Structures are given as C-alpha cells and as structure tokens.
C-alpha cells in the first residue's frame, strides 16, 4: 500500500463512493476512450518521489553550485540588472490571493488584481509619457516583436528597422518573429557607440517602424529626439526601448514623439533569476489602443454606481478575435508586473530620481577608476552613459572574465559574441548595489588580470 500523496485528498472510501456515483467499477474504466496503441502501459521512467525535506536538500544543493550576485561582486548587466529588490515586494507577491489567482475574467472575484493592474498601467504611462499600457508582455524581447506586429498592421508596410545598438537578444527575437509576420528586418549601424540619424535615414524609408534603445546596449545615450524625427519623417512608427529606472533622469519617450515605448521590466522589482520570469512593458499613444496586444484594464462602475475595474477592449484578443487577434498572448507576466508596481511605489518619484543619479555617479566613478587604476579606457569615451559602459581590456574579454572571477569579481559582459571587432571589450554595469569600494576592487582586479 503506497502512502497517500500530500497533494491529493481522496481517501479509499471517497474513491469507492465516487466511482459508485459515476457508475463504474474502477478508475481505469474512465479511460475507456483511449485506444490501446496510445497507452503507455508501463510506469513513467522517473526517479522516485521525494518528500519535501529531501526535495529541499536536493534543490538547495543545486542552488549552491551557482555563483550568484551574493557570492561574487558582479558587474554583469547587458539587459538584466542587480538592483535591490525590497522586502515589501516579496511580501506582497506571496499573498496567496494574488499569487494563486488567474486571469481576472470574473471581475467581481478579482478586483484586487484588476485595480493593481490599473495602477501599474498608470505608473508605466507616467514613466513613459504614453496614454495606454498593457499588462503585460513576456519580457523585453517579445514586446519588441509585439510592437512590430502593431506597426505592420498600422502602416501596412513590411520592413522594420532595428538599431545595431539595441540589445542583441531583442534583435534576435524580433528576427525570429519576423519570419512569421512576413517582415524584413534591417539594421541601422552604430558609430562610436550611438546611432547616426543620417545613417538611420538611409534605411528608414518605407519602414513600418524603427526601434532604438535608450540608453542603448552600450549604456550610451542615443540622440533619441533626432532618431524619432527621422523615423516619423519616413512614415515609420518610432519605438523606444527604455529602462524604467532611467526615466527619473531621462526624458519620457512620449515627450520626444515616440509612438510606442517598451522594454524589460526586470530592473524594476524583479530578481534576475537566471533570465526569468520577468515582465515586458508595452505602452503606446492612444491612437494605437485597439492594436495593443494582451490585457488592458479599464475603469467602470458597478450596478450600484461604485467604481470598479474590468478587462476591457477584449475584442482585440485571441479568445474573441481568434485568427485576427492583435496577438496570441493570454498567460502573461501579471505577478511580475505587480512586483514592478510595488517596487515603483516603494521608490516613489524622489527615489526614482535619486536612483538614476546614483547610477550615473557610480558609473562615472567606475569609468574614472578603471582609467586611473587599470589604465582601462572607455570605448566610446565621448558619450554620456547611464549605468553601463564599454571598456577595452587589451586582451580577450572572456579570458578577463574568467581570470577576474577567480578573484571573486565578475567584471561584466564580454561583447565579442555579439559585435564584430569587440573581442577585447567588456560591458560593465553599475547599479546602486555596487559600492565605491567594490568598484575600487573591480579596478584593482582588472589592473591585475589585464596588465
């Protein structure tokens, strides 16, 4: 007799009673529609079931074998950042009423999630200067593909432009989706770390959309208003891929004319978690509201006249519009977006500004220290950077990473995999979690391993 499994509740007598009610003799008879040829007919070849305690020991041992940001001083960024996540985020996301609910199709059961999403949409609109935000896309890559689907249908054009200084993962994902969308992807080159508006102009003709990243993948500030004008003049939708945490110090994309603003939300309230789950945010000017993918919550009133919230404009979505839907998305990243809302509420407008300034200062300090102590210079020395910058380390950057890690410091991301001619370039990210002392240590370690 096997022991009752902790995730099941039926007793033997329950089972007998239930079979009796159904009118069958055994559970097996419930599977009578399955032809023999499709039955497994043996036990699954899996390791034996573990108790919770055994499971914890096993999985904790796996976790131990990773070098995370608590076990080495990490300057890795390149799209995922080690910003501090306050305890209130964990506390709220672990509320079972929120954690274990699903899509709020039944608004009377889901006012908590619906109101939270409405508040999240408001925060994203405030940060980006847009009129409407969805909640949410999978991550900062898939929302870029979503935006191109919007642009394809809004303009009827079939070419899209991505700047080379946009996160390579975004560019790769967009190319994958473009095959299905029937879109051609063209890249606009970077020159000295940013995108030249004149060069963008040459490729933007007939494009449905132009996407650029601000700050870009190298951490440099793009001439965003100029890029937007070039795109708009070509009749293409200008799309800004932005870092939410930069938007206390950097201008909101809506204010310099972007049609859509989107990005990866991880930095704002999610742990890096080896790449997911996080949330992709996607916001737009009001004229695109009916082309937006995914969930949107709207305010309304109930039969007693009280304010309440519902999923709205659902005719855009797959469950109603099916093959003509604005996207196939249904399960999304609501919980992670909620983490974003809690985090942004925790920061507040002042905190957001201070955080941005601290990142700017620390990164400037790091640039200076690397130059002074290790003779390591920024690749794009004339550009203003936000929290990340690229340096030439004088030898293969992957080797530098390996050598520095032996000294307890992860010095950053080696760009050679993504950019030709950058085998000796490291992308160094500095968040508010890196202290000046840690930055000094980075400089010393790099002096040692690059010298």
């Amino acid at each position: 007799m096997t022991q009752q499994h902790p995730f099941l509740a039926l007793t033997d007598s329950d089972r007998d009673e239930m079979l009796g009610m159904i009118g069958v003799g055994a559970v097996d008879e419930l599977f009578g529609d399955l032809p023999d040829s499709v039955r497994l007919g043996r036990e699954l070849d899996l390791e034996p079931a573990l108790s919770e305690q055994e499971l914890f020991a096993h999985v904790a041992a796996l976790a131990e074998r990773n070098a995370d940001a608590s076990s080495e001083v990490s300057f890795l960024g390149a799209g995922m950042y080690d910003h501090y996540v306050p305890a209130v985020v964990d506390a709220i996301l672990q509320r079972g009423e929120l954690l274990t609910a699903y899509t709020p199709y039944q608004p009377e059961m889901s006012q908590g999630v619906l109101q939270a999403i409405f508040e999240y949409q408001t925060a994203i609109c405030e940060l980006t200067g847009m009129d409407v935000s969805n909640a949410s896309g999978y991550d900062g890559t898939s929302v870029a593909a979503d935006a191109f689907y919007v642009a394809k249908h809004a303009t009827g054009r079939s070419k899209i432009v991505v700047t080379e200084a946009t996160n390579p993962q975004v560019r790769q994902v967009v190319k994958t989706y473009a095959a299905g969308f029937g879109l051609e992807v063209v890249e606009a080159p970077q020159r000295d770390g940013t995108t030249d508006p004149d060069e963008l102009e040459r490729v933007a003709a007939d494009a449905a959309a132009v996407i650029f990243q601000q700050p870009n993948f190298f951490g440099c500030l793009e001439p965003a208003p100029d890029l937007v004008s070039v795109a708009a003049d070509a009749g293409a939708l200008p799309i800004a891929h932005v870092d939410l945490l930069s938007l206390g110090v950097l201008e909101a994309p809506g204010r310099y004319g972007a049609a859509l603003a989107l990005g990866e939300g991880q930095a704002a309230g999610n742990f890096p978690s080896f790449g997911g789950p996080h949330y992709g945010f996607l916001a737009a000017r009001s004229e695109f509201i009916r082309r937006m993918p995914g969930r949107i919550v709207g305010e309304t009133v109930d039969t007693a006249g009280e304010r309440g919230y519902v999923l709205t404009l659902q005719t855009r979505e797959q469950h109603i519009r099916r093959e003509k839907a604005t996207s196939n998305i249904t399960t999304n990243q609501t919980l992670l977006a909620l983490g974003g809302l809690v985090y942004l509420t925790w920061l507040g407008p002042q905190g957001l500004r201070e955080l941005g300034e601290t990142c700017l200062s620390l990164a400037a300090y790091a640039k200076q220290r690397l130059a002074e102590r290790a003779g390591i210079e920024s690749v794009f020395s004339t550009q203003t950077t936000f929290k990340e910058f690229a340096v030439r380390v004088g030898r293969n950057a992957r080797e530098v990473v390996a050598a520095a890690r032996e000294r307890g410091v992860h010095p950053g991301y080696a760009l050679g995999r993504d950019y030709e001619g950058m085998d000796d370039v490291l992308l160094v990210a500095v968040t508010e979690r890196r202290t000046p002392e840690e930055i000094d240590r980075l400089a010393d370690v790099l002096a040692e391993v690059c010298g």
Partner: protein
Amino acid sequence: MAAAESYPEELKYHEEHDWARVDGDEAVLGITWFAADLLGELVHFEPPAVGSDVTKDQSYGEVESVKAVSDVIAPLSGEVLAVNEQVVDAPETVNEDPYGNGWLIRIRLGDPGETDDLLDAAAYRQVLANQ
C-alpha cells in the same frame, strides 16, 4: 433603448445580415436588427475610409460589442461617399435605430445590376427562420 425587431419592406437585404437603401446611383448601407441584437450593445464601429472602394460580399468594416466582433459585409459594391460619424461616436445608435440614424456608410454604386441579387424583406425573414 434597443429597437423592436423589424425588417422594413423598402430595403434590400444580404444574407450576412446587412441592408441597403438604394437611391438612384447611391446606396446607404447598414446592419439588420437581427445582427445588432445578436451582437448586443455595440461599443465600436471601425469604418472604411471615405473614398475607398467596397466590394459586394466582402467586409468593409467591423462592429464590436463587449464580447464579440463581426465583419460588416457589403451587400453592394461601390465607392464610399460618407461614413456615419454619429455611429462612430455613439455605436449604440445602431441598436437603437438600425435602419435610420444607425446607418453605417453611403456609397456610389459601382454596378447597379448587383441590386438584383439582394433579398427582399420576406426572403430575408425566411433566411432568419431557417437559422
């Protein structure tokens, strides 16, 4: 208030639940009471551009309620002369007055002979009865 069911005799009908009021070489188009009732209160009308062409039996726009969306099928071909802005602003006008203030577009007929293919009110009622 939604209108009561009716299918005026002076209109021509298409079996996809659309009507046409032909006047010389122009026609006014809309959806029938049945279609409006099936969808429920309309919340959106996505009209074609004035000056564009619509083709008989093909979609020229969309109407939406909260839970459904439907193509609007052109009963006749022609060039769009006007879009009913009242319906764009207040789509529920279609539910309230489907054959009057709830018209959708006015067209200049491309092929007046197409009118002969349309149903009269009795034939359209028969289509509904068979559903």
